[in-house]
């Protein structure tokens, strides 16, 4: 179904505007009109609404950009900024670091700070991956009591269609004794180190490049732990 055939064309048009603004393809109303072919009055109405609800904002130069409301929806306490800044240390230089949360038996990448070092698989914001293949899941679950962990995993069980076995398998990722850093290795997600961010339900994950020397990994691991706890 195209935009015109939709029952809610404004949603799709708004999404096209957001795509254009977030990618930088068009950052002014005139450029958006040229790109999307919408009438000037429709564009003005859509932009007005998007600005009003904080989905689009204007910079000091008048250019449009994606509004802060989006980041509030995924990170209401604005933790990502401080956490990624805390990762700005020489031992983590060049590394890809992600902020993840648990959703049932899956991990959701809330945001990703891309590094320069090549990875077998580069995570993207919004991507989901099996909890078993992500160190962040063990890091998050292991900071919880067994009851809290069960409640957290079960909260999305119906949405994901998880059975009791699925929930139990996920809960087995929880370590009874807490560690500073949790590690995982899987063909799907490569090697990861993760530390929980206390009191948040998030974990910071370091995505380890192939053939990275172990002493450097050990240093990065310590730096990751410090970042997760110092931010």
């Amino acid at each position, binding site marked *: 179904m195209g935009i015109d055939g*939709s*029952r*809610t064309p404004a*949603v*799709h048009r708004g*999404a096209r505007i*957001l795509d254009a603004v*977030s990618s930088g393809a068009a950052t002014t109303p005139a450029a958006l009109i040229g790109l999307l072919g919408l009438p000037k009055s429709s564009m003005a109405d859509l932009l007005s609404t998007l600005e009003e609800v904080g989905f689009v904002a204007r*910079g*000091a130069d008048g250019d449009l*950009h*994606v*509004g*802060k*409301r*989006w*980041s509030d*929806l*995924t*990170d209401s306490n604005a933790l*990502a*900024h401080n956490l990624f*800044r805390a990762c*700005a*240390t*020489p031992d983590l*230089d060049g590394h890809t670091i992600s902020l993840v949360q648990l*959703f049932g038996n899956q991990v*959701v*990448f*809330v*945001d*990703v*700070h*891309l590094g320069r070092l090549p990875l077998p698989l580069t995570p*993207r*914001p*919004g*991507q*989901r991956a099996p909890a078993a293949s992500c160190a962040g899941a063990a890091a998050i679950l292991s900071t919880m009591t067994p009851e809290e962990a069960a409640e957290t995993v079960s909260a*999305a069980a*119906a*949405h*994901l*269609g998880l059975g009791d076995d699925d929930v139990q398998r996920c809960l087995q990722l929880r370590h009874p004794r807490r560690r500073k850093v949790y590690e995982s290795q899987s063909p799907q997600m490569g090697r990861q180190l993760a530390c929980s961010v206390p009191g948040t339900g998030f974990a910071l994950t370091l995505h380890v490049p192939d053939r990275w020397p172990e002493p450097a990994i050990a240093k990065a691991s310590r730096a990751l732990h410090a970042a997760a706890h110092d931010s």
Partner: protein
Amino acid sequence: MTLADLASRTGFPKSSVMGICHALTHEALLVRGVDGTYALGSHLFELASAARAHTWPIHDIGFSYPVDESFFLAEIDALHTEADRLGARLHVHTAKESTANQSRRILEFVSAGVDLVLIEPVATDGLEEACAQARAARIPVVALGSAVSGADAVVATDNTKAGFLAGSALATALDGRGRVAVVGGIPITANSDRIAGFLAAVAPHPGIEVVATSYGELDAKSGRRAAREILAAHATVDGFFAANDQIAIGISGVLRGRKLSVPIVGVDGAKGAIDEIRAGGPIIATATQDPPALVRTAMDIGVALHSGAHVARRSRYLAPRLIDAHNVERYRPWG
């Protein structure tokens, strides 16, 4: 969250909520579970990441500059304006013409966790280690006024063009004939570019001979010293090119003291040079720099780099203008 929950929360008819959720799911802004509930979709996280990158706040800006000279003070004024606009704190530090001081201060900025470092360099080389430390801490370093080895970006005047404009003005004033002296500045690319531009402008005039080359610094005193040395070695000098207006003002003082009517051209567009152009010399022309525009451009690039955005052009060179007796009344100097 179910459709019924959403309808209850929003007060919209359930059929409308269903249509909107269907569209949002189609756009991957929501995802529908097997039980009909909705959760945040992958595209929403992408937009959130883009928003976060754009609104990455800048709290602290560090600026190191060579010495308390009017040009740098004008840049500091402009930086205060930009910092106020961003709601950021500005930390300024004079390196007192020492590369070691400047390097040390950059490292201190890094240790203090500033969000952005701007450098008016004392020298092009010698700051590599400090810049590497800043990069490791993911703090962008933007060179202002002249390139710096190791910086992430540079914003400067098109200094080759500035030297060319000044050289053309001197060649015209000398009617294509004469013995000229070149007084360069501190060892930064801006000054070597200005000299290269000047030499390119006089090259087509075989009657113009460069008889002396000397170097000044960032003040009039160094210009006076250079002028005295040149005039001691060369009985006849018909014109001077100065790498900056402070040097030109120093040369002018020596020439006036000796009642010599010799034209001088410089670079900066500083108030002292403009006053002399208005008064009829000895400074007859200056190629302008625009400190507020340099600072604004550097801040734009620095903010973008800080947010993790891709910056396609990391070297920006702003065009200078030649100010001489013909247009001096319309020019407002920055100093």
